[in-house]
């Protein structure tokens, strides 16, 4: 009987085996890695440059410098002076953006095929000869301040996330915010910026992904011409600090102007290449992906929360599995916390039913297809696999890694990581104007 049920489920399982992602790989003499994904349906190209430098490479006092540097990379180099990177690219029908994380700084260019050579020329210019003028540093500092006010200071979520992380990590650089502490944003010196540029923006510290209407020959000719002459540098020093094992629950309260409370739960988990990562992905899907997920039914449908979502994020060093809960009006944070923790306890105590496990896998595998919808997504996907998973080719092993997750794995991993000792709980408590002026804190 059991065998028949499993066979039926296997028929219902989603397979993405037909969708392999083809990539050509080259390494230039200076150590820069070039990954090419050809897609000739259309005359557009994306170029993503992944520099392995992020806030984990920073020090106290200069937090946020990676992100600041990301901004400075648009403020003029030798051949393309101030503003020219954007002006010239937009005129050629292209656009660009960039993002910084704890681990990476990524530059993203989107353009018609006709602008391919221009793109190589402009990227090479700023990787080689960025100019850091004092006026630009000053004005961009204000821009970053404004971004901080928008994303953190005036955002309940931004504030809670920053404070909970600061408590979840005691030693490792993941404890500080990517955008940097306000006092550090004021402090960066030009010397620090110059040092940082040399260190982080070495070609040997970069993986370039080109996806779209290009050929391998075309890309490699331009890469050799424009990127290969860039001298290699010493890469950023290794991040030595290892976060000590957490030996008991940590709690943080944050008072902030808000309509509703907000909660964040964080557990330490291994770095992305670990064999438990696919299991944690499945755990996240079981808990909160879709309206039939455990937390949706118990908390959202059960009128405890507006939102309850869990998941991990890719990381070079051991990272976090996080749940975010937004309790409903009139629901005490203690109540929503209890519900969440009970659901997690069930995953630890009981084996997940086979059909539910297959559902979670189906959702993750269908999401995999969704990642392949655009050449930009594909470039990001390929690049992330290269830097976090230990090689782009692991993309094509994704299905197998998810299908291999068993109910025993789910239970084992929940027991191993989602424990009380390993947990940090952050709670944002809404306050009104009057409460703030009293400055009473908790002393009642």
């Amino acid at each position, binding site marked *: 009987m059991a065998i028949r049920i499993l066979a039926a489920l296997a028929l219902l399982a989603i397979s993405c085996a037909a969708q392999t992602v083809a990539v050509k790989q080259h390494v230039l003499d200076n150590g820069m890695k070039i990954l090419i994904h050809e897609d000739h349906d259309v005359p*557009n190209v994306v170029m993503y440059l992944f520099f392995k430098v992020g806030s984990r490479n920073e020090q106290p006092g200069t937090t946020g410098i990676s992100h600041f540097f990301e901004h400075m990379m648009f403020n003029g180099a030798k051949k393309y002076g101030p503003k020219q990177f954007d002006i010239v690219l*937009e005129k050629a029908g292209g*656009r660009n953006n960039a993002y910084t994380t704890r681990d990476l700084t990524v530059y993203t260019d989107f353009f018609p095929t006709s602008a391919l050579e221009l793109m190589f020329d402009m990227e090479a210019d700023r990787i080689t000869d960025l100019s850091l003028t004092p006026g630009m540093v000053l004005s961009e500092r204000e*821009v970053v301040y404004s971004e901080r006010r928008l994303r953190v200071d005036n955002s309940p979520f931004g504030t809670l996330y920053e404070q909970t992380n600061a408590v979840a990590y005691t030693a490792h650089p993941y404890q500080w915010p990517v955008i940097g502490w306000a006092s550090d944003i004021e402090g960066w010196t030009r010397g620090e910026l110059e040092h940082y540029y040399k260190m982080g923006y070495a070609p040997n510290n970069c993986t370039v992904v080109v996806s779209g209407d290009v050929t391998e020959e075309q890309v490699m000719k331009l890469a050799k011409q424009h990127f290969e002459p860039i001298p290699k540098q010493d890469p950023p020093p290794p991040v030595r600090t290892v976060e000590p094992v957490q030996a008991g629950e940590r709690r943080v309260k944050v008072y902030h*102007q808000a*309509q509703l409370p907000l909660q964040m739960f964080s557990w330490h988990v291994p770095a992305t290449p670990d064999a438990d990562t696919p299991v944690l992905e499945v755990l996240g899907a079981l808990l909160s992906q879709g309206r039939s997920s455990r937390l949706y039914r118990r908390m959202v449908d059960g009128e405890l929360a507006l939102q309850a979502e869990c998941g991990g994020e890719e990381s070079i060093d051991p990272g976090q599995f996080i749940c975010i809960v937004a309790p409903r009006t009139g629901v005490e944070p203690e109540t929503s916390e209890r519900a969440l923790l009970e659901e997690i306890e069930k995953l630890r105590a009981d084996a997940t039913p086979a059909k539910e496990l297959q559902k979670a896998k189906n959702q993750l595998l269908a999401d995999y297809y969704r990642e392949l919808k655009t050449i930009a997504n594909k470039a990001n996907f390929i690049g992330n696999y290269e830097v976090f998973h230990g090689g782009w080719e692991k993309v094509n092993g994704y299905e197998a890694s998810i299908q291999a997750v068993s109910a025993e794995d789910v239970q084992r991993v929940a027991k191993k990581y989602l424990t009380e000792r390993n947990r940090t709980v952050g709670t944002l408590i809404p306050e009104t104007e009057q409460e703030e002026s009293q400055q009473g804190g908790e002393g009642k």
Partner: protein
Amino acid sequence: MTRKTFGKLLGGVLFASVLSLSANAQLKLPQYTKTKLDNGVSVVLMPKNDVPLVTLMLLVKGGGESDPAQMAGLADITNDLLLRGTTNRTAEQLAAEIDFLGATIGTGSDTASNTVTLEVLSKDVTQGVEILADMARNANFDKDEVAKELARALDSAKSVKDNKQAALSRYATKFFYPQGHPYGVVADELTIGRIQRDNIVDYYQRMYVGSNATVIAVGAFDAKALQAAIAKSFGPMRKGQAYTWVKQGPIARKTAPSLLLVDDPQSTQTYFQIMQPGLDATSKDRVAVELVNTLFGGRFTSMLNDALRVNAGLTYGANSTVQERRLPGAVAISTFTATKTTVAAIDMALDVLKKLREKGIDEEQLASAKAYVKGGSPTKLLETNDQLAALLGGFEVTGQGREHIDSYFARIDAVTVADAKRVIDTYYRSDNLVFALLGQKSAIAAETAKYATSPVVVELSVPGVVINAAK
């Protein structure tokens, strides 16, 4: 952390019919068919073999403009409740079925329509159609589910105020549009609080009918089989009556500048919008305005962003948007700045507007805007199944068709510097503007009083989006 507010990550184009974006190339919408079932349901099919996914969209005309003013949010909530159970499936069964397929479902409501979008793997498309039809035809509005949904909508409306930009945008909308205008109706705790189950059932019975519904499918499917599946599942839908669109002329420019200040005593920055009357989606001026707006406030190197962010460091981003709706909407400058630089930023935005009016734009700028808009169009409009479905849904509202896309580049090419000047004179004026600010009243009220003679001040902490003063 990202660098820009502009241009979210945009990707490439996916269909082979666009062979080149050089000067003479044109955009071309992939082939699609449109038919009608006997009961009035429109069926729009666009087969597109790419990844093995299909986007199925149910579109019902009406949306926000069909909300009774006192019950703003009715259309949206009714639509959300389609996911909360039918006479054949409980909410839980519906969710379990969709999730097991690895499908995603989303509901949306804008000013003119409600949509339910179901994305399924190609192999599940028939089942997807059946589920969508069940929701469209047999929603049962279970009493408990309705009560839960209304309570949830109330909390959601409340929590909008935790996002200051979104909060300002609601106040600004209400302040900008004249009394009685369908676009000035904003759903908040007060309007949602008035909605009863009877209102929802009534709305559903009137609006979710064959004559008012369109089913759109874009993706990898067999057109003949899918057409048959749609006919089978949607064929029994009651015919009913098509929605009659609200008739409304252009918005008159105010006779004096006006200013709304939403007091948020704890905010460390001021968020503001500067608005004036714009144009509708099908206006003959649309493309010229789009090009002018690209240069004025629609991209990173735009005049506004260059002045306020790049040169002055006053903000993380400044932009200008042109609403594109069935009825004429607004043109709005929008940004935020530290409390102490509020007036400096507003003055600078006004100065950039003045310069645009005085200097206009030249040939070189126009050429750059044309290249930019064309270069980004395929990825913005036609890249994914979802985008194409949204585009086809938009046609149902505006009455546009393939020509809108196929002649798009030709219309862009035809815009002259003189056209640009004409639309600047019409839509980028400096007189009698509408200002909406959200920030610390105590720090900015006195200084900003210079922009309008009798500013209206409201408190963010007062429940709802309430503007008491007469406009």
